[in-house]
């Protein structure tokens, strides 16, 4: 019996390229808007426009920050914390950060060094 769940069919010829990159995290509130649009949507659109490799938006359950106001879900109008993560080269993030600073009123921008592996097997 083959124990297929024990080991995936690992191709041994997999060439792994681990690259150095930067991880950017933006923390703000779901309430924040930019030109009438939710700020996180505006930021993702801006990232695409600037040809940033990728961006992901997460919604937290509860949090507080600069304004010392607790962000949480309310029955009327939720104000939960939002985290946007972006992984790209340092140069690309240096291009992006000033633009985002301009868009954000309050919030936090943090970067860290990371190693990353890009996986792309499907065509197109």
């Amino acid at each position, binding site marked *: 019996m083959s124990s297929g769940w024990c080991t995936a069919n690992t191709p041994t010829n997999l060439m792994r390229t681990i690259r150095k990159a930067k991880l950017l995290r933006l923390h703000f509130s779901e309430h924040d808007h930019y030109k009438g649009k939710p700020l996180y949507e505006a930021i993702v659109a801006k990232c695409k426009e600037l040809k940033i490799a990728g961006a992901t938006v*997460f919604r937290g359950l509860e949090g507080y920050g600069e304004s010392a106001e607790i962000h949480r879900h309310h029955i009327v109008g939720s104000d939960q914390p939002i985290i946007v993560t972006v992984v790209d080269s340092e140069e690309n993030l240096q291009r992006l950060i000033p633009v985002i600073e301009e868009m954000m009123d309050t919030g936090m921008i943090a970067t860290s060094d990371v190693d990353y*592996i890009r996986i792309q097997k499907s065509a197109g």
Partner: protein
Amino acid sequence: LPIRIEFVETAQKVDEVLPTLYDMVTDGLIEVHDTEVIKVAKKERKRPHVPHTELKGKARLMRIYMGESDKWQGEPLHEAILKRLRLMDISGATVYRGILGYGAKGHTHKSHMLHMGHDYPVMVSVVDTEEKLNSVLDELESMMKDGIIVLSDVDVIRLVHSQYAHESHAND
């Protein structure tokens, strides 16, 4: 009613008991197979739970980005990855679902109110030692079609296992 008695033991133990069984079974069948033990789970409560790896101080954080609709052998990829990580004795993993994003596949992950087949971004985060995480990279890469794996250095401040937590409560 047919009766079948099965047991799993070391080859030596089986050899020891085999002559006795041979004598006892006058009508029936005795089979011996090689078997591979994958997991031994005991319901014993007395002994403290042995933590996977002693994690303290320097460790690595791995973030795995994928789409919610990604599949591996018909199963949601993030679930398959979680199971795999558990099997490989990784100390813990958390799955996050994003609300918006784009990345490797170039398409926007977004909720569509009218479509059932939405594809939210999903991120699995894992904290363990560098060696442990390196040992699962091959498996993860072979399971994923598109996506990225991001690794960074972290400091582990505290790791509490639920078993210990119960004990310390009992001692309070």
